[in-house]
């Protein structure tokens, strides 16, 4: 039976090929941490990590991810120990209503890995750009209608500094 690996466990893929990964998480697995915002890849609320890379769960059919490793917000922490970025979000007050937060966190966790891998961004092409401008560019796929952006960038900056110690 076709499966994908979700937060470390194999799960069977849905029968209906029209099922997006996002709807699969909600309707088949009752995992509601990943949020449906626009459902069109514009807001980033449904961001999850597939094979180490962040993607919009609303714009991929579950069947396309056969045998892939998928990590959702429910799989970010290490058991009871929060991921350092989750802790930084609390310390920096990086959310208000919280609806976009799971997507912001999955996106931010991937961003940390992308920086370690030396992945370029559009800001790479300006030698005057600061780290915060680079983070903002790399996080442009995650909207926050409460406007918590400065604190989100601060939280990510804190974790980058922690990791570079």
């Amino acid at each position, binding site marked *: 039976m076709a499966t994908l690996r979700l937060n470390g466990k194999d799960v069977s893929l849905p029968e209906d090929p029209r099922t997006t990964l996002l709807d699969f998480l909600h309707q088949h697995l009752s995992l509601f941490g990943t949020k449906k915002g626009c459902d069109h890849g514009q807001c980033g609320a449904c*961001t999850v990590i597939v094979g180490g*890379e962040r993607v919009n769960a609303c714009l991929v059919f579950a069947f396309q991810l056969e045998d892939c490793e998928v990590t959702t917000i429910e799989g970010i922490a290490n058991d009871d120990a929060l991921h350092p970025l989750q802790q930084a979000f609390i310390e920096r007050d990086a959310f208000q209503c919280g609806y976009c937060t799971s997507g912001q966190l999955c*996106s931010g966790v991937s*961003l940390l890995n992308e920086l370690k891998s030396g992945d370029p961004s*559009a800001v790479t092409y300006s*030698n005057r750009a600061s780290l915060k401008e680079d983070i903002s560019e790399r996080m442009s796929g995650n909207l926050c209608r409460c406007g918590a952006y400065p604190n989100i960038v601060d939280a990510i900056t804190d974790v980058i500094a922690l990791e570079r110690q």
Partner: protein
Amino acid sequence: MQPFDLHHYDHSTPLNSLPLTDTTRFLAGGTNLIDLMKLQVETPNTLISLAKWKEANAITQDEAHYHIGAMVSNSALAKFSHDEPSLSLLAQALLSGATVQLRNRATTAGNLLQRTRCYYFYDTTKACNKREPGSGCSALNSMNRIHAIFGTSEHCIATHPSDMAVAMIALDAKVNVKNANNDTRQIALREFYREPGDTPQIETVLANDELITHISIPKSRHGTQYYHKVRDRSSYAFALVSVAAGLTLKEGRVDTLSLAFGGVGTKPWYPQSAIRVLEGAELSQEVIAQAAEAELSHAKVYGSNNFKTTLLRNTLVRVLTSIAAHQEKHPEHEGALYDHA
């Protein structure tokens, strides 16, 4: 979303074993097609998933070309191009498009074949000749701020939205395809897209049974390269106008020039009239403006998009002036114009 039959393609699947009709769509990353299917703008009867086509995930090279597999993600291609000085223009264009999430899923071939972001194409309550041939064009006499000024017809003025394709036009990329008989052919990207004419629903020269296998980009020197994208916000927005340019100078004159425009054409625009003015010229703001005017003699504006002529002229002047100044100081430079201000 309407139901569809699902088939899978991988390297060992004969294409002629698949139902390749005009209601069949290949599904690569899905970032555009799945969205259009949700909106019922696209209602394919059959999807052929390319997720298992692992062989198309590779970038290879020989002495003369880079070969980019159809399924290479936009992120992977951006990273590869970033590390190759002569492909800097491509890296800049890719990284200016979409978001990291989308670039991780979007593929090279899918990017070329993405559909327009014309508001009326997306809105199934509005007339659109591209979505429903013969229904009319809602953009012609309505809000058309994002629409094209080159290659338009009375049936369609929608722009092609890709940034990547603009850089690839400038770099003279070739599209390699194979068909159901396993015949292969190579099409210059500059000849790959069709202008809308009276059949705007047909966007490329591909036949129903043809599958893009890889893109080939010739290895050549492009000098100082700059992809400048003017848009409504600084990230995650489509181009109103973009200019992709690479330039080398010889004795103060244009030696090689790679040039294409985005956001202004019904297809990624190869500005042949502008290039004729610029070839071998001693660059000045006046000469660059003359080149812009030569190209703009082919333009037609539609009301809300009238500003694009001035914006294109000014953007071209800025881009070419910047990279020419850099080339004068650093004649051997090959790569991005990192700091143009």
